[in-house]
């Protein structure tokens, strides 16, 4: 696909607006996929790889961190090889955000870093965070101004606020990137990543959340779930 053909694709995508706070995305995933068929197979595969590295909701409970790190490294290498420098920077920024958040969560939980484990994060922030583990914001507050507010919300166990801050920061970052690219592959990827934010935000549903949480709990408890249910039944004296 030469650069001119991105003009058709980008013009066929509706504007995502100024904010991700919408009830319904302006285009459905089905319609978006149809438009993305204008991309070459190579670019479709690359876009799919990028999405799978950044969106972890498709991962099942058996996923392995090392596989995720390996696939992220492969995607970054592909982007370097194909000279998509802005795109590489964008993906790395998102991965660093996850690593910093993971570091903050580890530390809040009181965990020490397991140096035996080769990697615990993705991106290039891992070594820096290990060096500044005792520093309140891993000495990153000048580069990532949102760390202080995320740390504060984590301490209050306000996970919704953490999510909101990260959405805001990511949205603003992607907006900035999209203003530099109009009709190229980077613009397409930026659009899809922004669409994913809009879609995720609009799909947030408290009832579905509880249902999903219960299914995760059921999976985590496994056979012990039956045991715990048995104890409850005994205490009520209903069945025995």
């Amino acid at each position, binding site marked *: 696909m030469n650069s001119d053909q991105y*003009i058709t694709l*980008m013009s066929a*995508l509706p504007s995502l607006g100024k904010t991700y706070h919408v009830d319904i995305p302006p285009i459905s995933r089905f319609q978006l996929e149809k*438009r993305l068929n204008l991309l070459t197979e190579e670019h479709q595969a690359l876009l799919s790889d990028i999405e799978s590295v950044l969106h972890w909701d498709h991962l099942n409970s058996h996923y392995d961190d090392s596989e995720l790190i390996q696939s992220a490294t492969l995607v970054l290498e592909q982007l370097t090889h194909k000279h998509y420098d802005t795109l590489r920077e964008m993906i790395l920024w998102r991965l660093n955000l996850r690593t910093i958040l993971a570091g903050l969560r580890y530390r809040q939980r009181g965990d020490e870093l397991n140096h035996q484990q080769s990697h615990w994060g993705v991106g290039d922030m891992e070594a820096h965070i290990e060096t500044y583990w005792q520093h309140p914001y891993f000495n990153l507050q000048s580069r990532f101004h949102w760390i202080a507010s995320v740390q504060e919300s984590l301490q209050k166990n306000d996970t919704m606020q953490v999510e909101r801050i990260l959405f805001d920061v990511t949205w603003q970052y992607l907006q900035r990137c999209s203003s530099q690219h109009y009709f190229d592959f980077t613009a397409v990827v930026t659009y899809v990543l922004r669409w994913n934010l809009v879609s995720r935000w609009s799909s947030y549903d408290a009832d579905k959340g509880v249902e999903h949480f219960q299914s995760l709990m059921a999976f985590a408890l496994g056979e012990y779930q039956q045991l715990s249910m048995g104890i409850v039944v005994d205490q009520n004296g209903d069945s025995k």
Partner: protein
Amino acid sequence: METVILMLGWVGVFAPVALGVIGSTIGCSRAGMSACGAMLDTESGYGKFVGISAMPSTQAVLGIVVMFTLNREINTLNAPGIFGVGILTGIALMLSAIHQGNSVASAINASKNKPEIFGLSIAPAAIVEGFAVFVFVFALVVSGAIPQ
């Protein structure tokens, strides 16, 4: 040597139209692609998208007029002048058509999402058109000074 000079003279005569047409082709195709994409996403206003996507065709017409102005009996006295004016006019027309196509594509993309800015969004493309007209007018003026 004389043959080369005469050949360059003929290149100068035909350059405005050839390069102008190349630029218009690229510009119109880019703007047309944008119009096609916008038509997938909108339910109305197709006519105005297709209409403005033809804006970069002007440069080809301007190139034809400059070609007729430069067209004369080519000799060693006038060939260098014709080559200089013709080739530079052609390059300027070609680049302006290509970039006007980009401006039009952006205008279509923007006005598709915000129909109320349609008029304003084509202003950058009109300014680019203005530069093409400058080249055209001054090519006509300068060509008058080239010996017959």
